[in-house]
């Protein structure tokens, strides 16, 4: 079937992560949501309702494809089957952006289904640069790499995460997907300054921003923040988002909500808040 893919590139406006429970609502009404993002692995199938609705939504909106399983940090390189299936999806839907993570999830043939932390060493740096370069060559597309949230740091890290992320991007030619919630969560969990992390990422490298909710759990006498994408974006993260926009200018911004997924109205109202941040920032820049 030939499709007229309009508005392919992702605008510097608010998008949301696409969930099957919202397919009908999205198609039934207009909202402040300007684009959608899918998790690549959820669409690595031949057909059926998921593809039917994704196609209808793609006909109306720009789409971003966000992988969670490429495991760019694996010491033994990339899984060709995973790359092949990602390529099929990219060819089928012509996304405006393709992104992955600064993490690993596969060891040998085992896929651990989580975004696992990396040591920030020279060996890890060359592993990422090699794997990202291979992926970009194979996909014939620049990709974006997202900073993870993490619950431990390694004591033999040579680089801080922001230094490492920027080095990976510069050496591989990829862009950065800056997840503000992840910066905030990791900053709280490890005791670094979230604003200086953001200050250290050059604006020209940032192609997209993510926002999400997280939870707080007690950890002995202290607390730890868990990036569970299961609630509204908290006030502190909204404030850090505004700080980021002031620093780097407007960027395509995605609201992620993956667990305890709410009604469409609740999710799209989060997008409306991001939309207001972006449009008021643009107006201020003009005045």
């Amino acid at each position, binding site marked *: 079937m030939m499709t007229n893919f309009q508005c392919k590139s992702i605008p510097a406006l608010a998008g949301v992560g696409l969930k099957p429970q919202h397919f009908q609502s999205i198609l039934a009404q207009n909202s402040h949501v300007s684009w959608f993002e899918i998790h690549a*692995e*959820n669409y*690595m*199938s*031949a*057909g*059926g*309702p*998921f*593809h*039917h609705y994704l196609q209808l939504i793609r006909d109306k909106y720009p789409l971003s494809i966000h992988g*969670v*399983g*490429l*495991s760019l*940090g*694996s*010491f*033994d390189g990339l*899984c060709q*089957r*995973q790359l092949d*299936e990602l390529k099929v999806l990219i060819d089928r839907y012509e996304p405006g952006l393709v992104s992955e993570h600064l993490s*690993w*999830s*596969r*060891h*040998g*043939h*085992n*896929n*651990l*289904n*989580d975004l*696992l932390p*990396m*040591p920030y*060493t020279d*060996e*890890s740096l060359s*592993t990422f640069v090699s794997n990202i370069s291979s992926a970009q060559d194979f996909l014939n597309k620049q990709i974006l790499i997202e900073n993870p949230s993490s*619950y*431990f*740091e*390694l*004591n*033999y*890290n040579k680089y801080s995460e922001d230094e490492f992320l920027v080095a990976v991007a510069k050496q591989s030619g990829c862009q950065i997907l800056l997840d503000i919630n992840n910066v905030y969560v990791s900053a709280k969990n*490890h*005791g670094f300054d979230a604003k200086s992390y953001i200050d250290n990422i050059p604006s020209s490298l940032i192609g997209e921003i993510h926002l999400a909710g997280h939870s707080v759990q007690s*950890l*002995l*006498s202290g607390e*730890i923040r*868990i990036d569970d994408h299961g609630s509204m974006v908290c006030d502190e993260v909204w404030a850090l988002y505004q700080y980021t926009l002031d620093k780097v200018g407007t960027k395509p911004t995605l609201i992620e909500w993956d667990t305890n997924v709410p009604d469409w109205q609740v999710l799209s109202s989060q997008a409306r808040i991001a939309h207001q941040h972006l449009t008021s920032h643009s107006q201020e820049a003009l005045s």
Partner: protein
Amino acid sequence: MASLNLQQFQQLMNDNLLSSQLDSSSDELMALFNNKQSNDESNEEANLRLAIYRNNVIHSLSSAMGDLYPVVKKLIGEGCFNAAAIEFVRNKPPQHAALLHYGREFCHFIGEFEPCKTLTFLPDVALLEFEYNQAYHSGDAHPFSPHSLGSVPPDELGHVTFTCHPSLRLMRSQWPIDDIWHENQKEQPSVINLDESNGVCLLVYRLGLTMQLVSLDENCFVLLEHLTQSNTINQSWSQVVEAANKQQRQLDAEELSGMLGYLFSLDIFTTFEVNV
């Protein structure tokens, strides 16, 4: 300060995230954590930080099993299901990042899982759920119109073969797994007396966006089994006759056209070819 190369670190993480218990290798891993506290709590804290990842891995994968096998979960209860799913996930972690095709071996596993061994129908119910989900995500195709067979000369009709919809799955069970499946979609399932039930021959497929679960009689099922293997109508029918004779089932030669008509009405065929 001790450090590991990337391969050693990822091996250690893999082993620790999938193991049921922490051991000396966990101590080796946790010794690499950047502990901000130098008090007695640092070991316990490292343990809790590692536990977040251990829990994420096992919980996300066992939840995926629960989403894939809701009827099995309902039949054996959440506690028993979670125990089975966690043991399965630890023993058979996904071999591919896309979980859409993960978990088929759970059908066999649940039959061997000690607390469920007496529920001998469980593996077939699980397989029905797995195939149902596979059919849901399988490729798209339009059913053919039986009228188009009108172009085939009558003496060549017996040489026709069919292509089936990519979602079509055939299943045979000695248990009434379709009734079990249907009842357990309800809030309050009725009791099914397994002693008074017969086996079933089932088709699972997707028609457009809608899933179909259809029960066929044995003769019609055998006919379809052979048609799905690219046998002609004539070849498939002779297999039906042979099977019916062997199992002393009643079969009338005139039943063929009725069976074909019924199969056509299900919209499971997408193309046909005349093989002369």
